[in-house]
């Protein structure tokens, strides 16, 4: 089983986690329809390092991870607001 390091609970089996998808840029106040469409439907998908949201389900810890989408290597994990 692959391990993912929860910033609160340390390394845990990856099936204890829920994937919440890539980090999306915030939408500006009063955004136009086209910006809304891009915000909702577009997502980071380039082969390479990617910043994404994860949740450790048993402890309900939501955090960020940087993972390489070609090698499936988890590079680092951190709590939102904390310095990675």
């Amino acid at each position, binding site marked *: 089983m692959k391990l993912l390091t929860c910033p609160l609970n340390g390394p845990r089996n990856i099936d204890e986690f829920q994937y919440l998808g890539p980090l999306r840029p915030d939408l500006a106040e009063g955004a136009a*329809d*086209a910006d809304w469409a891009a915000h909702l*439907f577009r997502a980071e998908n380039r*082969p390479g390092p990617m910043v994404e949201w994860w949740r450790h389900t048993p402890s309900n810890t939501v955090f960020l991870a940087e993972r390489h*989408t070609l090698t499936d290597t988890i590079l680092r994990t951190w709590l939102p607001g904390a310095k990675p």
Partner: protein
Amino acid sequence: MVLRLLKYGLSRGYPVTGDLPPTPDLRASYDVVIVGGGGHGLACAHHLAKYHGIRSVAVLEKGWLAGGNTARNTTTIRSNYMTMQSIAFYKEAVALYEGMSEELDFNVMFSQRGQLTLAHSEATLRAFHLRAETGRHMGIGIEVIGPDEVRARVPELNMDRGGALEIIGGLWHPDGGTARHDAVAWGYAREASRRGVEIHQRTAVTGFGVTGDRVTQVQTDRGVINAGAVLIACGGMNYDMALRAGVDLPIRCFPLQAMVTEPVKPWLHTLVSSVSLHTYLVQSSRGEVVIGGGSDPYQLYSTRSTLDLKEHLAEGAVHLFPFLRGLKVLRQWAGITDMTPDYSPIMGASPLDNLWLDCGWGTWGFKATPVAGKRMAECIATGRVPEVLAPFALSRFARFDLVNEMGATAASH
């Protein structure tokens, strides 16, 4: 067909011919460059050459012919979708599969054995009724059947009476079937190359030269070529490829995993899917039980299996057919699926005038091979998008006019 077969069978020589010429040198320019030598790209090349007289076509394949998702899918062909737009499109695909061996003079082993999707809950059954009514309205073969008829069609099924996964009914789709996926690609490749289409294997597209609103150059690891029009049809790498031309598609890639068991005597005569178990099974003509339906839970560009996904597939298969418990897994693999937000493809025009898209095929690409090839060829040859493709335009996302097919599959998402 029958007389030809007889003549061939009785001939002394059994004439053997090579199906494909070796990869030639790249020319300086082509009328059409197709990125991706899988089923879709080859079908498009065939239709361009045979029906539109466009023979200056290069199909560029990074690896080997049909070695991507064409070789990795579980060969399901069906048209029992949710929306009328999708049903119209896939209905045409089924019709083209019915005549494909004749069209290509190549046995693609199309076997129209019917597909049975299982309902384990009242909610699923209600959705089935809606799908059956929509399907009937669109003129496809589809009906909701009760547990007795499910049992009659597949006597080996574990009905799980009184259990959490009791089978309370099914969606029977007699039009459904399978074809040998490699043969589909080879048949198209042979016919296309007979008419002058060039197939370039081990030729990677590294980028595009874009001038104004047009793609003018296709850059490859074997040199730069000029193209009148370009089609992107490279499965799992569609997002990456389109981005090289500056087109940002709403696609996220996930591996989809499948496996086959050792061959056993034929006992499963339909395709069986379970929406609740995210598992589908079909027995190949060799007797192997093909099991599919497990998508990895996070974005990844990988064709490797994981133990937990294989366990999940085995669990589903063994629940439905407990006697499979002792069977050995013969082969296992994954394919990179290019998933869209609404589980429908992205076909037709792009923001660039001469760049065409045949993308977003996620977990539902093989069944569309002939119709996507035929209709994309029409786009390229006439410069216009046929009506049947209009709902699947890239522009639908900006219009919030999605074609939601999330519930039309038993693959896990």
